[in-house]
């Protein structure tokens, strides 16, 4: 329960902090922290425009994505003392595959519109999400290897390593998770959310034709996704050594804040890769995940 409330709290502030960071780095005047939520409220008051080519799939896809993200947020625990509302052995598989279900409907919702733009975004998104999945699986597999438990709620218990190896693991796992979160939420360097050229969009163009309350749900979903990944990262950091409750909550919120600042920082200073190099980049992240798993395996066997 605690983690769900904390995720919701961070989701409220997340997009605002990213926008403020980007504005400060580009020398512009920053908007208010809750500005994205004013946008969402404005969107939900509007009506909708639907294309005659679309069918029920287009209408059901934003609803489905929204519900899935809320369901997935219920699985994330808060360290190993407070398991998530839903927890069982192998729940991280439900986590990943529910996100895959959301992506499935996002892609066919985009193809439903029957325009070339959405098709472009759809096929790029399908390829990149497929190449990025092994990265997350490898981080989870390393956690299973270290702690011997296969449920999210037990995995973030104390890692049985000496301090240096624990720092090694945390550093690399955080690097992979940050990149994975950026790829999944379609941020730089894979996809630029602020580009206005449809030919270069990936995620933005898939939701191009949504309007009104559908667009509001998509925006809420985006910020929820970020805070869910931030929660996993905070759990990994908190797993190194046990602390009391209040300090843990504080560290959790600070980690989410730093993640938001980091996203804003990376967005302001990185350029978007050429589309041909995207698949190479994502495959490198997955390979580094494999290297991490093998290194921890060797360390565990004292080789």
């Amino acid at each position: 329960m605690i983690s769900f409330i904390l995720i919701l709290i961070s989701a409220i502030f997340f997009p605002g902090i990213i926008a403020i960071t980007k504005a400060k780095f580009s020398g512009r005047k920053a908007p208010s922290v809750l500005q994205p939520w004013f946008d969402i409220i404005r969107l939900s008051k509007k009506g909708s425009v639907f294309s005659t080519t679309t069918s029920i799939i287009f209408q059901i896809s934003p609803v489905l994505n929204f519900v899935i993200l809320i369901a997935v947020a219920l699985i994330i625990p808060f360290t190993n003392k407070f398991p998530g509302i839903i927890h069982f052995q192998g729940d991280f598989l439900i986590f990943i595959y529910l996100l895959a279900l959301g992506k499935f409907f996002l892609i066919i919702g985009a193809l439903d519109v029957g325009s070339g733009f959405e098709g472009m975004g759809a096929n790029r998104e399908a390829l990149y999400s497929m190449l990025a999945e092994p990265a997350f699986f490898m981080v989870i597999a390393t956690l299973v290897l270290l702690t011997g438990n296969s449920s999210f709620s037990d995995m973030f218990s104390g890692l049985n390593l000496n301090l240096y190896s624990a720092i090694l693991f945390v550093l690399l796992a955080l690097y992979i998770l940050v990149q994975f979160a950026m790829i999944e939420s379609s941020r730089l360097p894979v996809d630029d959310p602020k580009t206005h050229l449809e030919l270069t969009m990936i995620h933005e163009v898939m939701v191009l034709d949504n309007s009104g309350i559908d667009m509001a749900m998509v925006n809420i979903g985006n910020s929820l996704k970020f805070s869910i990944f931030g929660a996993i990262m905070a759990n990994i950091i908190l797993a190194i050594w046990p602390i009391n409750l209040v300090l843990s909550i504080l560290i959790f919120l600070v980690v989410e804040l730093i993640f938001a600042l980091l996203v804003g920082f990376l967005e302001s200073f990185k350029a978007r890769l050429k589309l041909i190099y995207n698949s190479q980049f994502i495959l490198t992240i997955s390979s580094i995940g494999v290297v991490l798993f093998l290194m921890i395996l060797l360390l565990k066997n004292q080789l």
Partner: protein
Amino acid sequence: MNSLIIAVFILSWFTFAFSKKLSYWYVFVLELILWISTSYLAIHVLISGNDYISELISNFYFNPLTIKIDRLTAFFILLINFTSLSSYIYAKQYLQPYLKEKSRFNFSLHYFNFFLLNFAMLFVVMVSDAIGFLLAWELMSLSSFFLVIFESDKPNIIKTGIKYLVQMHIGYLFLVAGFVAVYFKTGIFGFEGIKHLIESTSLNYGLSSNFWLFILFFIGFGIKAGFFPLHSWLPHAHPAAPSHVSGLMSGIMIKMGIYGIIRILFNLPELDLSIGLFIFLISIFTGVFGVMSAIVQHDLKKLLAFHSIENIGIIGIGIGLGVLGEVYHQPAIAVLGWAGALLHIVNHSLFKSLLFYAAGSVYLKTHTRNLNKLGGLIKKMPFTAFAFLIGAIAISGIPPFNGFISEFIIYNGFFEGIKQSGLVFPMLMMFGVLALALIGGLAMFCFTKAFGVVFLGTARSNEASHAKEVGWSIKFAEILPIFWIVVIGLLPVYFFNFVNVILQNRFPLFPFKQIAITNSLKWVGVLGIILIVVIALFYAIRKLILKSKKVVYGPTWGCGYTAANASANQYNASSFAANFKRISNPVFVDLSSEIEYGDEEIFPEKKNFKTHVEDKLEFKLIVPIANTILKYVKKIAVLQTGKIQDYILYPLIFIIVMIVLTILNII
């Protein structure tokens, strides 16, 4: 019960006496008797746990023909019967356009072979001594050959059928060789002989003689199942056959190969590491290869055929995990592996037959299988679109349907394996996790393409824009698998327990009811139900909210270019797969044509462009070898003159030569 089975077989020969419509119902009645009798026996065995052994015909070939139904057989019997039922119901409306063209003999032959195929498959799983088994196997291959070449007036269908028949017989040779080798080692000609094979086994990397024997059988069964180097008949036979036959073949006939492999593994007294590693690695390769080849296809049924190869790979991964778990003395992991594989056999037959039925409905109403000519069918054929969507979600292994459940069980097996100590075993498990993740992602890519291009968007050709929905009998045939897909997805614990019943003899001391995965599966089912309910609720709330707002409908934004046909602007199948094609080059041979412009061409004329991919293994390895053999065989074919005098002359010469040689005491 035995007399029923024999009587039904004899009665089926009279199908040829009936008219086109009546022969359908005649065979339907015979099939019903067969299904009910065998299913009754199967359910009896599953519940009571005793094997059913009975003699059908004594002195069939100097030995009685006995059938032996144990739990594994009972499992397969139920699966065969269900798939044949749905396939036969589908066939009625599917074959309707052929009523005018084909003769009465064609129809009767088709239904008769349908019955024979069902009968032969039942006997393949029920008979355990070699001669009866091989007889049933041959009958299965022959009857499926006749079913495949139903549309024999098209030129390349007979060629495909012959290709299929030749490959099946090559596999048959290997099976015979395997059984003969077992006979020479143990003196028993059949599956029982494998139980007596003794060989020293250990956890080293040497190859025992059991391994080579297993390879012999694996080639024979693997040609039927469709493992990687032996798969080349699958992508040709499935599109050539009519859709109910494709659904039947893909749904259950290729599982007969898997049945053979499982039977051998269950009967081997001790499994060793080389067998486990071999199955594991080749299944990983098969799975990834199958789905990579599927993405670049533009024929709907060929795409589905390659996905069958991929799912056979997943079943093989489960079997490999089970064997590896037994070799490393981890019964928990082995149970998860075997249970996942067996459950995936059920799941695959359900959603693959459903997908083939939906694809067949599309072909029936639009007369084309080319993805680039379809589109927008969800408005014209909503039920078919719904069926295809459920099949697509299930085959990508996505919750809340049944594909996720079997992959979940195998994944859990992998993660249990990662927790073990040692270096090699966790590394193998890592490979398995990576392979399954990759296969799942690629399958999602492929099926978003297939569903999106066929059913969504605007129609890309005239036939697609005038399609109509199918009749009630096809809808009923599709509802049968849909029902089980949804039930297995939402109530998985019962089916996991059902599959564990089969494994109880193999792992007698294992606490089946107390493992953690039963709790997880219960949660997965509950989550699935809640998810569907909540999504429906939120959708209803959204509709309510939208009623009070202003909703406008208009055409899709064409970027200001409205003169062209709306369908020309959207992505089609080749463009969707293009960025994957660039990175999956090693798997296929690209025979696309290029567009060339002349030097002085200022205003381009109309050009033609063709994309076509071929399976690399077949194109580079099998076709050149076959062509070389044909070149030499053609020289010998001079002897085949077609005149009856020559054909009498040859044996006459042979007889005279034999007599002379015997007199001279040379032979």
